[in-house]
């Protein structure tokens, strides 16, 4: 025998709906227009975040992709919900994913957010199918960590699909013959918008990419990169005109001495400044290194540029451009 829900006194109805978990409340709201209207107030009380994590389980020699959903509520007792839910991959998609996503995506739950953490190692095609599906739904991707065997297409595909991910860590090498066999420019059809972009194998990245593809990112770290010095100057000239980059770290092959590099900095109006390298308050006069302050045209944004030679490699220089700086007062500059 059913409970005639709407015959309950109003306060009892509210109480019952307030006590439902978000998934059940969503199902109830779908039963009728009136139910949806009744659910609105209770839905607003739900505050929290749904985190999705893609990963791959390895059992014996087999690999199984999985999607883990974790809902953390700041408004309701968490024991009510399955804290971790594993969805199975079947017929090129994760079972019941739509159901769980539709709850968070519903306009009823205005105080619920959804974010994704993507840890992916092969099988890569499964990851792409999932990524493309989730990216199309427009949910915020918080942290994406993608790993793959050398694959040029996978690099481009990952960066383009995850161009709106907040933090993106890409660990995928290009193939050995990438310079002759793959066009790394044409497939990039727009700028990335990542807050943090970290590429572990950046041999394929050129000044063109930093200027045209990464220019909307905030923090960029390019490990294992090989830039020419002229490319670094080109990047800085372009940055001065307009760019969102606040941090950039890469390696380049110097064309001459440090003084030669300094002269080029002066040419682009980058003012030489002493930068405190060690911020230890116990050291009265912290060590300094030569750096240059570059200001963006038409904005007040300033970045500090510095170069340093790695101990293990005399042929390359590390280049760092950063917004947060610790400049020394003139009194503290060692003579």
């Amino acid at each position, binding site marked *: 025998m059913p*409970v005639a829900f709407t015959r309950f006194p109003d306060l009892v109805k509210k109480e019952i709906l307030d006590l439902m978990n978000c998934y059940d409340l969503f199902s109830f709201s779908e*039963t009728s227009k009136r139910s949806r209207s009744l659910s609105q107030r209770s839905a607003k009380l739900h505050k929290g975040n749904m985190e999705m994590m893609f990963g791959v389980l390895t059992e014996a020699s087999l690999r199984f992709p999985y999607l883990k959903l974790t809902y953390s509520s700041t408004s309701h*007792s968490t024991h009510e919900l399955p804290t971790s839910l594993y969805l199975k991959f079947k017929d090129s998609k994760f079972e019941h994913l739509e159901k769980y996503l539709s709850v968070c995506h519903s306009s009823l739950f205005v105080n619920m957010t959804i974010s994704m953490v993507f840890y992916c190692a092969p099988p890569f095609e499964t990851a792409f199918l999932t990524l493309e599906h989730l990216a199309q739904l427009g949910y915020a991707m918080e942290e994406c960590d993608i790993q793959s065997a050398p694959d040029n297409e996978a690099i481009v595909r990952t960066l383009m699909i995850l161009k709106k991910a907040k933090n993106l860590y890409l660990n995928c090498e290009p193939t050995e013959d990438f310079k002759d066999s793959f066009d790394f420019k044409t497939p990039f059809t727009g700028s990335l918008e990542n807050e943090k972009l970290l590429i572990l194998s950046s041999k394929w990245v050129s000044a063109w990419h930093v200027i045209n593809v990464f220019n909307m990112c905030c923090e960029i770290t390019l490990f294992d990169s090989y830039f020419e010095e002229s490319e670094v100057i080109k990047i800085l000239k372009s940055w001065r005109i307009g760019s969102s980059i606040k941090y950039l770290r890469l390696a380049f092959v110097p064309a001459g001495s440090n003084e030669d590099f300094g002269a080029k900095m002066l040419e682009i109006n980058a003012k030489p400044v002493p930068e405190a390298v060690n911020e230890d308050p116990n050291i009265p006069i912290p060590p300094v290194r030569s750096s240059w302050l570059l200001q963006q045209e038409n904005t007040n944004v300033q970045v500090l540029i510095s170069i340093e030679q790695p101990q293990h490699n005399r042929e390359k220089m590390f280049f760092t451009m950063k917004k947060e700086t610790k400049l020394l007062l003139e009194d503290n500059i060692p003579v």
Partner: protein
Amino acid sequence: MAPKKNSAKRPQPSTPKPSAPARIVKVQSSDGHILQADVRALLLSSTLAATIKGYDDENKPLEKLEVNNVVGFTLKLVLEWCEKHKEDDPAIAQAEKDKKNIFIPSWDRHFLTKLPMGNLFDLITAAYHLDITGLINYGCKTVANSAKGKSTEEMRELFGIPEPWEQPSTSTATWDD
């Protein structure tokens, strides 16, 4: 077998009340059934507590309380629940309600889930009319739990909601009016 004690999860009163001799009164339902109850149990109902206080303030002998909006069968269930909880501190139930963090102790879970849905509905409605916060909390939570994991179709069935094509199409009329 002795009844199980309430779950340890439920917060217990910090200072147990000293047990006083039971003061039994008669309670009459809307359909004329007369039941007997300990006054301490009846005090869980804010509505009945106000009535009892009125009698006490005027020093009038309390022989029979009339509960006009609850039938005998449901009133018996209400009194059974109140008897079980007569030692509870009402402040705890209020705090649970405010926090939306309700754990149903095992005795109450058994008591409420064994009821057919229709009786549960009557019990919650009676608890609402008598203003018994703890019983409203557990009753509502039981109903919310009964909806757990159900699809939209199953919800319709559980809550007696007709299919969309059976519902009135005008904006003012509803399927329950």
